[in-house]
C-alpha cells in the first residue's frame, strides 16, 4: 500500500483511495475506540464517525504519522461519545444465561482458534484489564491505550491527544501505576501466567 499516494488522492477528494486507507486502519481504529469506550457498539459508532471526520478533515493533514493523525480523530470521537454518555447515561443490555444471569464472557467474543480454557483465561484477563481501564480518567485512558496497546511513541501520542510531551509521560506513568493497583484486586481472577507477583518483583 502506497500510503502517501493514497493520502494525496484522498486529499483531492478520491473516496476510493481513502477507503483503501480505511480498510488498512479500521481494526486499529476500532480497537482503540473499544479500549477507550469499553463497549463494542459504541466503539463501532465512534470508529465510523472518526473515519467520516478524517475524510472531511484530510486536507488538514500535513505529513507525519498518519496513524497518529487518525488516532487523534478517533480519540476526539471517543471523547464526544463519552460526553454524550455523561449527558444521557444508559444501562447497557448484557447478554444473559438461561438462568437470567449476565454473561461475563459472551460467546460472540470467543476466538474459535483457542481452547475453552485458553478462551476463558483470555476473556477474564481482558475483562479485568478493561474494567481497570474504564476506571481511569478518560485523558489517562487515551494515553495508555495509544502508548501501551497501540504501541505509539510518546511524540505521536502527544500529537494525537494534543498535549505536551511531558504531560504524556506524566499521564502514562500515573495510568500504569493506577492500573496495577486496580489489577491487584483482580489477582485471583487473573490466569496464573498474568498474576502479578509483588514479592517477586521486589526481590
Amino acid at each position: 500500500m502506497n500510503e502517501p499516494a493514497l493520502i494525496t488522492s484522498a486529499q483531492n477528494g478520491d473516496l476510493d483511495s481513502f477507503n483503501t486507507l480505511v480498510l488498512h486502519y479500521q481494526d486499529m481504529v476500532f480497537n482503540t475506540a473499544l479500549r477507550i469506550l469499553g463497549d463494542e457498539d459504541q466503539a463501532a459508532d465512534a470508529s465510523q464517525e472518526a473515519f467520516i471526520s478524517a475524510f472531511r478533515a484530510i486536507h488538514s493533514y500535513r505529513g507525519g504519522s498518519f496513524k497518529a493523525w487518525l488516532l487523534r480523530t478517533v480519540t476526539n470521537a471517543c471523547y464526544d461519545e463519552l460526553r454524550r454518555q455523561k449527558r444521557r447515561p444508559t444501562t447497557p443490555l448484557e447478554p444473559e444465561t438461561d438462568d437470567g444471569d449476565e454473561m461475563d464472557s459472551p460467546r460472540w467474543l470467543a476466538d474459535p482458534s483457542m481452547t475453552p480454557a485458553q478462551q476463558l483465561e483470555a476473556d477474564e484477563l481482558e475483562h479485568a484489564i478493561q474494567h481497570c481501564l474504564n476506571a481511569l480518567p478518560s485523558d489517562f485512558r487515551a494515553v495508555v491505550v495509544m502508548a501501551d496497546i497501540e504501541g505509539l511513541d510518546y511524540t505521536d501520542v502527544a500529537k494525537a491527544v494534543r498535549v505536551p510531551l511531558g504531560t504524556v509521560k506524566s499521564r502514562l506513568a500515573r495510568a500504569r501505576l493506577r492500573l496495577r493497583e486496580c489489577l491487584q484486586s483482580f489477582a485471583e481472577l487473573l490466569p496464573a501466567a498474568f498474576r502479578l507477583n509483588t514479592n517477586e518483583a521486589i526481590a
Partner: protein
Amino acid sequence: MNQHDIEQLSTYLDGGLKPSDSARLETRLASDLALASALDALRESRNLLRRMPKRRAPRNFLLTRKMVGLKPPLPRSYPVFKFATAFAAFLFFISVFATRTSQLAASAPAPASYGIGSGGGADVPATEESIMMESALAATEAPATEAPASTEPPALAPLPTEMANAPSDANPESEITRVAEDPSAKNAEDAASQPAPPLIANWQIALGLAALLGAALMLLLRLLAARKWK
C-alpha cells in the same frame, strides 16, 4: 519516591530517557529496592496491556459518498451560469419594481386638477362639482320663485350672479357644459383617454426569460454531472 521518580521510571521503561539520566537512574535502582519494585510494577502493567487481545472491526467502515456529503463535480462553466442567472434575476426584479413604482407615482391624483371626468380618487373636486351644479340649478330657478339665496357658499356666489346677468344662457345644461370645459379638467380627460403603459416592458420579459433559462441550464448541468458521476 515521588511523582517525578515514577515518571522517570515509566520513561526509562520505554527507553525515553537520555543516556546520562538512564545511568543515574540505574545506579539508584541498584540500591533502592522500592524504586526497583515500582519499576517492575510499571513493567507488569505495560506487559499486561500489550497482551490485550486485538479485536477486529465487527464490520467494514468504508465510506460512501452520501456519508461524507460528496457532491458530483460540476463543469467549469457552472459558476458562469450561476452568476449570469443570479444577475439577470436581480436586474429583472429591480427593474420591474422600479417601473411599477414609477407607474403608481404617475397615476396618483394631482390636487384639484382632476375635478371633472377624472374618475375616482378625487373626493373634494367631486363634492365641489356637485355643489356647483346645485348652485347653478338654484340660480336659474331663483328669479322665478324667490329672492337670491343668501345661504350659498361665498366662493360660489359670483356664479349665480353671472347666470342671472345672462338670461340667454340661463339653461342649466349649458352651465354644466361650461364647467366641463375647464382646461384642467380637459387635460385630465386627455390623460385618462391615453392607453395605459404595459406593466412589463419587452426587455424586462427578455431579462426574466434569461434568468429562467439560466436556472434551467444550471439544473440540467447538475443532473448531467450527477448521472455521469454514478
